[in-house]
């Protein structure tokens, strides 16, 4: 079970959320100029990375708001949660302390762009977290 820190509601169980697929897939500037192949690529072709993946989530049982998430598809580590419409945060800046022994806990419930602090396998549970 993933513990997802909704930007509005704080940490909630994964069952309260719905997955929305890859984030940052922009609608074509001029859809009429696309040929069938390009259109099919826009509609159906998505990245399938091993590692960090930017994806959309909907807190469907709670505040019913969409948000973006950077998740590691191998370890399920949630690296960042940020609002819709904002660019993908750069994780390379944070990569250095990631290799250290410990990182300080960040309050990820209120600010949209602050990533939950995740070191090793432990997940920091903010205020109002599930048990």
């Amino acid at each position, binding site marked *: 079970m993933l513990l997802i820190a909704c930007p*509005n*509601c*704080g940490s*909630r*169980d994964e*069952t*309260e959320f719905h997955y929305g697929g890859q984030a940052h897939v922009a609608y074509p500037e001029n859809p009429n100029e696309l040929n069938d192949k390009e259109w099919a690529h826009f509609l159906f072709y998505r990245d399938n990375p091993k590692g960090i993946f930017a994806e959309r989530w909907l807190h469907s*049982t*709670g*505040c*019913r*708001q969409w948000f973006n998430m950077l998740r590691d598809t191998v370890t399920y580590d949630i690296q960042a949660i940020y609002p819709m419409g904002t660019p993908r945060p750069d994780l390379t800046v944070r990569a250095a302390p990631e290799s250290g022994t410990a990182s300080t806990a960040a309050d990820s419930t209120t600010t949209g762009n602050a990533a939950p602090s995740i070191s090793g396998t432990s997940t920091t549970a903010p*205020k*109002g*977290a*599930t*048990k």
Partner: protein
Amino acid sequence: MANTAALTGINGLRDIRRSPASHLAPALEAGSVPGKVVLNEGPFQTMAGIRVDPRSEEGARIAAVTGGLPARCGDVTGTDSISVLWLGPSEFMAVAPEQAHDSLGGNFIGSLVEALGEAPGQVVDLSANRTTFELSGPRARAVLEKGCALDLHPRSFTAGTALATEVGNIPVVLQKTGEESYRLFPRASFADFLGRWLLDAMREYASPEVP
């Protein structure tokens, strides 16, 4: 409980109306354990779904009618009889007693519609959308904890707050009205299941406690 004697009439429909968990009423009474945990249905409350930007002018007008709009997740505002629950950044649920409904001589929905006016947003009469379960007693938290992943300990879930979540896999709005009393707002079609689920969760407290 509403004074039903004053609510007669309304084209004769009031008599044949039944609440989503009315068929469970005998079971709720039999399953309640006075002094430990008591469950009953508080049917037919007036509810309005409000969607409005709380920082806007129309949001201020609606806040004047309801006694404020909650600012963040968990907040509940309102007056003695009205409570406004936070469902989303611009989505709220206003709950008022049955008598406040426009069909019974009240003016709750009408005044909200009037406050919104032509401004962007919506006010919808959702009185039939959800029913209300009232769960109270020293064991009420233990009952809820069997099917709710939230931290319900008083240090984090205080009286006077409400959260949209799942109880027994049913999406509900869970409001804590007092130290040992809760209100659950499931949608009407889930009322039967949730009522029976709660009764099952309450059953162990009817037996003597094993030390």
